[in-house]
């Protein structure tokens, strides 16, 4: 049945070359853990992507219950975690995944660094990787405020003070992030929410696509 649906579409739109191009590529021996176990270090990039997918999915589901409002944010998080089936698990996936994605990203960066895989012609992909790292840190920073508990509030207070320590434009950056020169409150929460679920994910998708296109274009760097 599935095969026939596939054939029907393929006959008209010729989709086989599209996925063949993505799926059919050689995995060189030196990156295959079945040949050399130490090649597991090549998995960290893929694991970062895998955890990112979990973050996107669990985040999408969490917004079904979450409200970015200072009156209701904490209550809605409390409700989804205590009253909704599997709420603790879905929120747990997003909570722990957020830390895990940074760990995987860091290990991936270390592998690329110590193998010298960032060298010509792959410098541009290294730069994109560093931008991805910053976007991930931004996602972590903005997401941390959303439960609107004491830890979130004071951590954001500190984060905003750090931003305000920037020479010359520090206070403006702080106001831009917090939505108010003095208060960390209603406008800060809505801003952080918008940045967390719309702006940074958009940047993340664009950069990830670029990162992957370059890998396919340039291939994996050779053995040491």
């Amino acid at each position, binding site marked *: 049945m599935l095969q026939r649906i596939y054939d029907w579409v393929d006959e008209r739109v010729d989709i086989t070359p599209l996925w063949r191009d993505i799926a059919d590529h050689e995995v060189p021996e030196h990156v295959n853990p079945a040949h050399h176990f130490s090649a597991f270090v090549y998995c960290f990039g893929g694991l970062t992507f895998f955890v990112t997918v*979990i973050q996107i*999915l*669990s985040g999408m*589901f969490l917004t*079904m*219950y979450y409200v970015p409002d200072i009156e*209701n944010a904490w*209550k*809605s998080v*409390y*409700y*989804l975690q205590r*009253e*909704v*089936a*599997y*709420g603790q*698990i*879905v929120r747990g*996936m997003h909570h722990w995944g957020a830390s895990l994605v940074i760990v995987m990203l860091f290990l991936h960066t270390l592998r690329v660094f110590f193998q010298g895989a960032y060298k010509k012609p792959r410098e541009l992909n290294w730069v994109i990787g560093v931008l991805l790292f910053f976007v991930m840190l931004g996602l972590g920073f903005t997401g941390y405020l959303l439960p609107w508990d004491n830890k979130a509030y004071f951590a954001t207070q500190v984060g905003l003070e750090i931003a305000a320590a920037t020479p010359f434009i520090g206070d403006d950056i702080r106001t831009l992030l917090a939505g108010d020169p003095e208060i960390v409150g209603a406008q800060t929460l809505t801003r952080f929410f918008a940045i967390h679920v719309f702006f940074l994910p958009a940047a993340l998708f664009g950069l990830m696509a670029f990162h992957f296109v370059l890998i396919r274009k340039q291939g994996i760097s050779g053995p040491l």
Partner: protein
Amino acid sequence: MSDKKRVSRRQFLNYTLTGVGGFMAAGMMAPMVRFAIDPVLKSQEGGDMHSVASIDEITNEPQRFEWTIEQVDAWYESEVQKTAWVYKDENGEVVALSPICTHLGCTVDWGSQEEHPNEFFCPCHGGRYTKDGVNVKGTPPTAPLPYYDHKVKDGMLYLGDTISRKGE
């Protein structure tokens, strides 16, 4: 085993990888899907009965009675106003009807039409119901107005949940 039925190395790998991948994806998606469909599976607890009016106030003519209930909407609690049309039928039995039109949910009024003084009338699309709440043939509603579950205690009328009635 005939050659025809032999599974090639490529096929075997395809099956196992799809199987393992599918299992992992299912394990990942199951909690999230259950989380999302929770409102559908939450058991509805029957509402409490609320004191609405003294039994002496109820006449043979439908009257509008209003009362408020404490509504818990996930993390938001509020007071919500409820309305019923209440009268005594020929046998002296109390009838409490929901004012929500069964066509598209507007609110019906009693005797607001001069041509049909003894009917419920819905202003949105001209739906009509007879005094016992049965929809008039040829008007938009397809089912009678729902009843309120009711009881009389110590001379007071208590109303509970609505019970919908099937249309013909």
